[in-house]
Structure formats: C-alpha cells, structure tokens
C-alpha cells in the first residue's frame, strides 16, 4: 500500500519539522525543559521515519540512545541548573558565531550527501540476510576504519568527561 506509507511519511516528516521548530523557538513557553521535551518528540518522530524505511535497528537505537539516555541526562542537567530568565537572554557573540558556523557546516554536509546519494532502487534489491546483520557487516568489514576512529573519539570524550568531574588529580 504505497499511499498509506506516503501518508505516514508526510505526517511524520511534518511533525518532525514542527517539533524541531518548537524546540528552538516556542511561542508559548521559554522554559528549557519544554524545549528538551520537544526535542525528545522530534527524535521519536525521526525514529518513526526510520521505521518507514524498514531500518528497524536504527529506529530502535535512535530511541534507546538519544531519547532514552542522552536526552534524559540533558533534562537532568537543565533541571539542576535551573537557569533564570535574564541569564538565558544573554548572548555570547563568539558562541553565536561558532554555532552559526557549525550549523552551516552540518547543513552543507547534509545537502552534499543528499545530492550524492544514489537512490536505493538503482543499487540493490532487498537484503537477503537480516538487516541488523547486514549493518554489522558493513560497519565491521567495509567501514572498519571510520568506525574505529569514531569509537576512539567517543572514548576520548568519555575519559575527558570523567577527568572534568575529578576535583583533585593525582
């Protein structure tokens, strides 16, 4: 039923954009907790988009990692900091510049990858083995180097985070 999937796609894509917009610029509330909750909804809708692409593994991991773990910690920090309104209005020029720059960079990467992507119908049919297995093979056989680099990067970030929380280094 192609019409059904199309309907779901447009609904989910629309909701993703709407929730994403409400995360950044919510006319009803300026509370950072509300923003974080809308970001969670955005992530859930994106997981729905993955499901429509039959990428069940990615959808499950998206919910598990981003919605279930990362965002909970974000929320946790936001609640504990409890920023006052005047502190939130304060803009740091360097931060705004760097933020804009990285946004542009990410947007450029996204557009480039969309332009360069070959539609699935031209490359291959359905995978014979399970989709999770195929993903594992791709990661550990043809893309092992970038995968390992990313792992090391994550490890460095983790060690860094632990170091920051240590008060006295011996």
């Amino acid at each position, binding site marked *: *039923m192609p019409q059904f999937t199309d309907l779901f796609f447009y609904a989910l894509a629309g909701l993703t954009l709407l929730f994403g917009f409400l995360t950044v610029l919510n006319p009803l509330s300026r509370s950072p*907790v509300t923003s974080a*909750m809308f970001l*969670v909804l955005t992530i859930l809708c994106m997981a729905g988009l993955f499901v429509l692409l039959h990428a*069940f*593994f990615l*959808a*499950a*991991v998206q*919910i*598990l990692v981003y*919605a*279930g*773990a990362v965002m*909970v*910690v974000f*929320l*946790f920090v936001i*609640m*504990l900091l409890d920023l006052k309104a005047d502190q939130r209005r304060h803009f740091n020029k360097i931060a705004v510049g760097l933020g804009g720059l990285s946004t542009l960079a990410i947007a450029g990467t996204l557009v480039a990858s969309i332009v360069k992507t070959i539609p699935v119908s031209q490359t291959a049919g359905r995978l014979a083995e*399970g*989709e*999770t*297995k195929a993903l594992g093979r791709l990661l550990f056989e043809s893309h092992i180097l970038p995968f390992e680099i990313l792992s090391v990067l994550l490890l460095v970030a983790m060690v860094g985070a632990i170091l920051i929380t240590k008060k006295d280094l011996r």
Partner: protein
Amino acid sequence: MEAINYLNPTAQMILFSALKIGVVFGVVMTAVAYAVLVERKVSAWIQNRVGPNRTAPFFINYLPVIGPLLVRLGIFQPAADGLKFLLKEDFTPSYVRKVYFWLAPAITVIPALLTVAVIPFGSNLGSEKMVIADLNVGILYTFGIVSLGVYGIVLAGYGSNSKYPFLGSIRSTAQMISYEIAMGMSVIPIFILTESLNLSDIIRYQAENGWMIFKQPLAFVIFLIASFAETNRLPFDLPESESELVGGYHTEYSSMKFALFFLGEYANMIASAAMMVTLFLGGWTLPFIDALNLPASSLLLGLIHIGVFFAKMAFFMIVFIWVRWMLPRFRYDQLMDLGWRRFIPLALANIVVTALVVALFNN
C-alpha cells in the same frame, strides 16, 4: 466465524491484531490488579498477619461454601481498591507545573504497556502467532521503550515543583540510566549465542539447545537484579524511599493519578517478568516433552503453551514480591557502586568470554 475467511489479508491482520491487543491489555490490567492483591497477601504472611479478608459484594451470601472462602482470600479486594482510587478527590496543589504534572502519570504507564507488544506469550492458536508484533529487533525495541519510562518519573518530580519529589526523580534518573547499561550489556551474550534479536528466534534457540539460564547464569543474575532497579522495587526503591523522601516522585499525587504510577510500577514488573521468561527460561516451552517444546499443532496445546508462559511469569512476580518484603533498602552510594563498579565490568567480561568461546569452539 466463516465471514473472517472472506476478508482480505490486511483486514484479517488488523482484526486479529486488534483482538490480540485488546486481550493482552485486559489480561495485563487484571494481572496488575491481582499482583497488588498478591503483594498484600504475601507481605501479610511474611509479617504474620492475615491481609485483606473482608471485602464482600452483596451476592456473596448466595454462594454457600465458596463465597466466604473467596472473601477470605481477598478476591474482591482489587475491585474495591480500584473503585477507591477512582472516587477519591483528585487534588492538584497550586504550585505545580500543570502540564507536566498531568502528563507524568500517563508517560509512566504507556511505556510499561507498550513493552508487552513484542513478547511471544504462546506459540500459536490455529495459524495465528501469539505475539502482537514479531519484530526483528524485538529486544532493542523493549529496551528503547523501557528507557522512555524514566521520563514519567523525571517529569513527575519536575512538575510537582517541590523538594522531595524532585530529589526522588533525580535519584531515579541516575539509578535507571545506570542499571539500563548493565541490563543492556547483560543480554549481549544472548545475541552472540542466538545470532538474532528476534524474541521468537531466541525462544526457538532455547527449545533446541537448552534454556539460557543454564548457559548464561551470570547474565541472568545481572538482568534479574537490574530489573529490580529498573522497576524501582525494594531493595532499590530509593526514588520513593518513604523514610527520607515522604513518597518520592509521587508525593504530590492523589487519586487516579497516583493509581497510574502504581499501575505503571506493576505493569513494569509484569513486563520484566515476561522478558526474563522469554530470554532466560525458554518462553512458552518446556523441555523433554516434544509437544510442549514445538509450536502447537492444536488449539488445546496452544492454550497449554500460554498457560506455561503465565506460570513462569507468575513465578517471577512472586520472586519480585517476596524479595521486597525480605530485604532492607540499599544506601544510595551502595546502589551506584553495585551498578557501575560491579555489574558493568562483570557484564563486559561476560560478553568477552562468550564471544571468545563462540569464536574458538563454534567453527
């Protein structure tokens, strides 16, 4: 019934799915109500009391011997409890953040109920598989949904906008995230052995090669203890520890909203019990008897399979309840120590050892 055969496959699928969802929802809700009764009865027996034995509806006088027995067992108590929750005043304090205060109970219950969707609670009845959604990534789905459950408690603490609930929700967040890691890692050896994330495949593997609890006892122990922490049950009930935090995250809640938190806790227990049965105790199978180990060939066998699954699940529910009334609460630093410095390294070692054994001996 003949009319079903004339429907197209999609309509049949929708009809049967709706039927399964309805039945499973009803069964889980009833199970929650009676789990509360069992909890009260077991706690009473452990503490040398009698427990609920008075609730009697008007028609009980017409049943000669059975009636008084049912009353003494407290069979009608859940109905009275439910009615009480519905009829009590639903008080909303003036200082709460209303939207989150209202959302939190719902967000607690929904994930607990969604988890049940992927659990195969029987082989098949006729040609219909006894699982609502036979997902390829069933187990990851469960973990994903369970990890969303923490929002209910976080938002309850934030929405209540007062000290004790907030402290409770902070404790809960840290606790649930910590034990989720241990729990997630404890099941990775199972994937390594079964080469699948599908829960039906995992049951099939166990029917052929013996139950997982004997192959992965360490994984089972970690999963069992982590599920106590995930469901906020004693000895890990620090989020609501009444001696320090009044009632923790649900201090400000009353009436049906409080009942929803209660319901969420028990539904979570049922979901964890079902997961443990599926992952470690072979689901609906029983070894040594072929008729019980293979998918059912008749309606009666199908029903027996469902019965076996529920019996195993009831066993874990009793364990949950029994432990709660036998053990004192952990201290918070002990809880964190156990999670991060005992279970996570143990689970990691278990993964490495299992992977090594599979790599060395399976080829």
